[in-house]
């Protein structure tokens, strides 16, 4: 273990501890159990802290094998961000710009899955700052599901983090957040892209609604 990786581990623990202090985050396993099987967690995206919260509520043994999928055009723009994105979170860094990219993002994600990791994916593709609870999904989730159809896709609804730290704010406000994990789904045989994206989008909305009703 290098000094850099020790420092990365300590930083990861510090970030998780800080997230817990601010949000007292609680996991609700509402359809799946926290077991170490290979999964793609797909979640709503309102804040840069989103994957920190998912990470914080995963049991440590699972956490270490769960990698967020993040945009390299954001996370590789400064030394600090690069350290956090690459070393601390061990993110699968993809380039969102089709013109400039050299690697195929879907292949990168599939490689990470084949390497034994689970993934955290934000299928909206960007942070949602509008009034709509969930933006339409980009096609990445579908393409990944069609290349690796045997991997469970677990919907994850993150509640309240957009209020803790809205886009553009630096100081987080302490508010209680929940992370709700729903029933896993997979691409069905013969299911076309639009139908699948609609179905997975609806699964995430249903998860949000079940939390609002509880």
């Amino acid at each position: 273990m290098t000094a850099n990786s020790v420092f990365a581990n300590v930083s990861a623990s510090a970030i998780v501890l800080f997230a817990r202090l601010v949000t007292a985050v609680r996991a609700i396993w509402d359809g799946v159990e926290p077991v170490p099987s290979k999964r793609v967690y797909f979640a709503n995206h309102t804040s840069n802290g989103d994957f920190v919260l998912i990470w914080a509520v995963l049991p440590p043994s699972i956490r270490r094998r769960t990698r967020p999928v993040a945009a390299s055009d954001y996370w590789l723009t400064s030394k600090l961000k690069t350290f956090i994105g690459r070393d601390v979170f061990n993110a699968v860094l993809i380039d969102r710009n089709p013109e400039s990219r050299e690697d195929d993002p879907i292949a990168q994600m599939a490689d990470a899955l084949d390497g034994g990791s689970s993934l955290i994916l934000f299928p909206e593709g960007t942070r949602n700052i509008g009034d709509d609870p969930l933006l339409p999904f980009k096609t990445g989730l579908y393409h990944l599901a069609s290349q690796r159809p045997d991997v469970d896709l677990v919907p994850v609804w993150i509640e309240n983090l957009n209020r803790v730290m809205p886009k553009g704010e630096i100081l987080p406000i302490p508010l209680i957040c929940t992370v709700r994990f729903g029933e896993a789904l997979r691409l069905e045989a013969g299911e076309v892209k639009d139908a699948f994206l609609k179905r997975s989008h609806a699964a995430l909305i249903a998860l949000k609604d079940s939390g609002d009703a509880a």
Partner: protein
Amino acid sequence: MSAPFEFIILLGGVLCVLILASFVASTLKKRVGPNDTDPVIENLVARINAWWAMVALLAIAMLFGRAGAVILFWLLSFAAMREFLTLTAKSRADHYALATAFFVVLPVQYYLVWIGWYGLYSIFIPVYAFLFLPIISALRGETENFLTRVSETQWGLMICVFAASHVPALLTLNIPGYEGKSILLIAFLVVVVQGSDVLQYVFGKLFGRHKIAPVLSPSKTWEGFLGGVLSASVLGALLWWMTPFAFWQAFLVSLLVAVMGFFGGLVMSAIKRDKGVKDWGHLIAGHGGFIDRLDSVVFSAPIFFHVVRYFWSTT
């Protein structure tokens, strides 16, 4: 680090009660059988276990005197306000106002208690936070639900910070003949108010028939209220030796804080109903959130503080 002798006796008594409670709970659990579970008994066990932790935490804090009490209640205020503001109306325009509430108003209030500046800590939130936080929100120019947003934030500060800070503020009182013992006032208040909550629960479970406020809180009954409040007042009277009060005064003061505690629970239940939640949080197993446990204390603490200050204190 020093605790008056009376504190040790009281702590011994509380520990005896906890041991007895744990014994009764495990007996009840055995009677249900190892394979069956009864949600009421499961909850009882969780509650008692949480009480062990809470008593330990309070005792440790009090051994450290004013610093311990101020830091403990600062943290409790933080946790309570985090629960409260999770449920209140707010918009992005309130970000700085809420950050100010958490990172300026909260520490300043406890600092003022720490230095014992009665003239300022007793008006800091009702006057200064009350006037300045809406200014911060207004500067962002978002008018939708403005009055609701600023009112609910102010309410959270009053309950979770202002009222709660009156518990450690008891240590700033100067009572002739009671020097160095004011930590016992906190112990007395907490034991009577929390004792009243527990006794209301016990009387309610054993004899509860007639509901007081079925819409607000289905678990509150007349039998629980009268039995709990009166027995807690007797308990308080029997603790007169650790207070500056005579026996009958200790009874009346205990009656006052137990009744205030009861109404605190009622008011906070009304807010929970309004916001559509059953508990304020989830961090204290068996009890719910911090506010679920503190509601009675925050309602009784300022009244207890002012009664003691008016009749017994020289400051």
